[in-house]
């Protein structure tokens, strides 16, 4: 019997090897081209769907005993290939583990199963006058465990830090099937590791009291001026939990979508007010910000509370701009806060075209910047769009930054994100509990390239990026689609 048959026989209705299921679980949020898929991605053997933690433990133990590689998956809302297969593996879809186990008002913690989403937990907590501290921009769908395994940042991180700062303790089923409870001291065994050390079953995370959200918005044509404002806020005001910056191109594209109902993009484009083509800063504070601190610069405009409140309520809708795609190649980098302006100038110089981006600032003087490259996954140009994230990461590295997450596409860059001590600990753990590297193989640590095992995947990706960029220069190909032709025409006028 082959591996699929034994999985089928053992897990029956909790396993599917249907061709349709295998196809749709073979990718995540980022589109992959045929060429890239040929080299790197393969369809999973099948999908396992545990309904309980006991189911999950049985599945992992069975895979381990039968030497079947397995990949944990939450909602599949990331774009780094961390939850997609690269070799014959089975995907374990944990999105059904959705119990909210308990909350503790005294210690301000909540304990949940790994498939619980941020929206689910928020709705639950709000009934108790509680809420989350930090959460991602994909909160309506993203699972809490997925965000931690990704090394997440987002809303609330200016005060409460990243995903790492939310965890109190966790339960993990190790690759050999043993279930273990870990304290915060062992957080480095799961944080930003794409689940290579096992599958999280339960997490206790920090929560906070539900407080008033005082939302402020600033517009300015000067990025520098707004960054000065950000510096003041991050250094002096400890009640601010969110600092969210958007560039003018991102704003205009959002406007185009919001004004485009029942209009052609040409008509909608005409209704865009380019006088508002400015950088936009949204700041959310648990206490009212003193009037003196709000704005002291004539180049910065303070927006009306009504407008900005509505914007805050729609904070999970950034991806609406994908309607202009049809596809988007996203790219996220983390850079030092003091290098923000330098980095953006590097990007502008490199691409010399409007590129939409937005950013969150993180406690500890870092910022995550998310770029949106428009493409069409049906066309050959997708192969070139694939290079843009690599170029952006290279530019980030020049200013001391890094890729936001490792997953598969940035495996091999682990030294940029994780400390030597953490890497040693993880390597030692893997040797002890997963000597055959069955648990989410080829992620985080770069493996050998499957068609030419003398070199690593990281080298192949770098070579591909280098030669691709040369080819693009020679053939004068842009690696992305102009966001919206009518909008750009207007810009040029």
């Amino acid at each position: 019997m082959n591996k699929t048959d034994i999985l089928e026989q053992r897990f029956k209705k909790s396993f599917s090897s249907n061709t349709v299921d295998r196809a749709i679980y073979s990718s995540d949020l980022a589109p992959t081209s045929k060429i890239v898929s040929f080299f790197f991605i393969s369809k999973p053997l099948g999908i396992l769907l545990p309904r309980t933690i006991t189911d999950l433990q049985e599945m992992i133990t069975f895979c381990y005993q039968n030497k079947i590689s397995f990949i944990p998956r939450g909602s599949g809302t990331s774009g780094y290939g961390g939850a997609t297969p690269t070799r014959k593996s089975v995907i374990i879809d944990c999105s059904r583990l959705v119990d909210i186990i308990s909350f503790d008002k005294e210690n301000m913690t909540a304990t949940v199963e790994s498939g619980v989403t941020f929206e689910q937990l928020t709705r639950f907590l709000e009934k108790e006058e509680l809420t989350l501290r930090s959460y991602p921009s994909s909160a309506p769908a993203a699972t809490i465990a997925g965000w931690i395994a990704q090394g997440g940042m987002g809303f609330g991180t200016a005060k409460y830090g990243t995903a790492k700062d939310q965890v109190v303790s966790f339960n993990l089923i190790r690759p050999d099937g043993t279930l273990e409870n870990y304290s915060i001291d062992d957080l480095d065994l799961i944080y930003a590791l794409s689940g290579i050390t096992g599958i999280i079953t339960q997490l206790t995370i920090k929560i906070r009291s539900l407080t008033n959200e005082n939302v402020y918005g600033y517009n300015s044509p000067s990025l520098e001026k707004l960054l000065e404002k950000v510096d003041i806020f991050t250094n002096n005001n400890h009640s601010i939990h969110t600092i969210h910056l958007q560039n003018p191109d991102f704003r205009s594209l959002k406007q185009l979508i919001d004004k485009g109902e029942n209009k052609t993009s040409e008509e909608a484009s005409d209704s865009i007010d380019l006088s508002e083509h400015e950088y936009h800063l949204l700041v959310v504070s648990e206490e009212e910000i003193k009037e003196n601190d709000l704005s002291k610069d004539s180049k910065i405009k303070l927006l009306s509370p009504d407008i900005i409140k509505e914007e805050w309520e729609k904070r999970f809708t950034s991806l609406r701009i994908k309607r202009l795609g049809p596809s988007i190649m996203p790219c996220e980098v983390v850079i030092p806060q003091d290098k923000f302006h330098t980095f953006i100038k590097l990007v502008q110089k490199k691409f010399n075209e409007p590129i939409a981006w937005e950013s969150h600032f993180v406690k500890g003087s870092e910022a995550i910047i998310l770029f949106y490259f428009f493409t069409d996954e049906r066309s050959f140009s997708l192969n070139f769009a694939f290079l843009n994230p690599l170029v952006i990461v290279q530019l980030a590295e020049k200013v001391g930054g890094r890729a936001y997450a490792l997953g598969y596409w940035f495996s091999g860059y682990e030294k940029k994100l994780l400390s030597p001590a953490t890497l040693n600990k993880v390597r030692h753990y893997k040797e002890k509990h997963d000597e055959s590297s069955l648990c989410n193989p080829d992620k985080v640590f770069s493996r050998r390239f499957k068609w030419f095992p003398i070199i690593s995947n990281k080298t192949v990706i770098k070579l591909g990026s280098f030669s691709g960029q040369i080819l693009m220069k020679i053939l004068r190909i842009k690696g992305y689609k102009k966001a919206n032709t009518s909008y750009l025409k207007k810009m040029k006028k």
Partner: protein
Amino acid sequence: MQIKELIDAELGTEPFICALCGYCRQSEAACPEFKLLHWEIFSPRGKLAAVKALEKGQLKANETTIARITESLYNCTMCSACSEVCLVDIDLIALWKNLRRWVTKEGFLPDTLSDLFDNLDESKNIYGVDLIDRNLWAMNIEDEVEERYNAKLSNEGVGVFFGCVFSMGGSVRDVPEKVVEVFEKLGIEYSLLGTEEWCCGNPFFLNGLPEKGKDFAEHNLAKLKEMNVKKMVTGCAGCFRVFTEEYPKITNEPLPFEVQTIAEFLVEHIKNNPPIQSQKAFKAVFKDPCELGRHCNYYEPPRELINQLPGIELLEFPHSREEAFCCGAGGLLKATNAPLTLDMAHILLEELQPEVEAIVNSCPTCQEAIEKAVKKEGIDVEVIDIIDLVLRAYQGDEK
């Protein structure tokens, strides 16, 4: 029809616009099919991913593939919860209809629907009974209504369209008689189609076969025109959606008359002639039918009507209006997978607050599905059509 032809002709770039954000499957008020079946293919996002994989050649349109896609399409209630939360505003219901059309043309129409469509072709109703039996609901009041069949109306009169489920369905077949009683009490001039009433054609429209629904539209519109109808009322959410959304697309022009739900129609009449006293006061909750609410953006009139009836305290489900949970019977699911219908109704009933004494419906399909689930689960709550509620208010006067 090849999948590529379908995409080029009908779906366009829409499947590729999907942001894969997962809001359609993961949000609390999102897809009930995914909530229960949980494989990605049973989510809206999963269906689109399958279409994209077909278009990109990552999947072949063979029997296994189409069978799995068919399974996912016919476990969907077309409740439109997916469209409601879609980040990029994809008209997902239009996509599901087109995909159902495709699998039907490929020979994958579920047998139960094949039988239902045969019934429609042969008998012009979903049950396959003779047209002459369409009036059986009126057997106790034949003398009173006989003159109402196909009667010419003055400009103040209304044409009543009951639909198949109210006219011939099991537990709701007493509702038309109650409509007549309420109309008589309020002195409303009305006319009935009787045996001339055909199904509105909703099963064909929900299956992406508007050309098959065309005969039904033309017949019903012609008969209503013959009665000089200036306003048509219906108590069925599905019929209301078909008349207001599908028929104008068939005729390429606005309908020659106004269409209202009976609930909305009665709001004004009750204002002018309110019931004085009702039965014992009780707490009720209104269940938004998907085909009225999310499909037609129609939420307030039934609530307005209930609020006019004395003695009723109207509560809301924790998820209501745009976020309302589906009863599970829509989108032809009751015919293709009845146990799943019951499971979806169970999710809805889990939301029921203990103090609620009655669930009020404005859709016969919801009424039947919820009634069945309540009975199965032994819940102590009354399931009642909104017209029944109105009639009781007036009967309270008499007592």
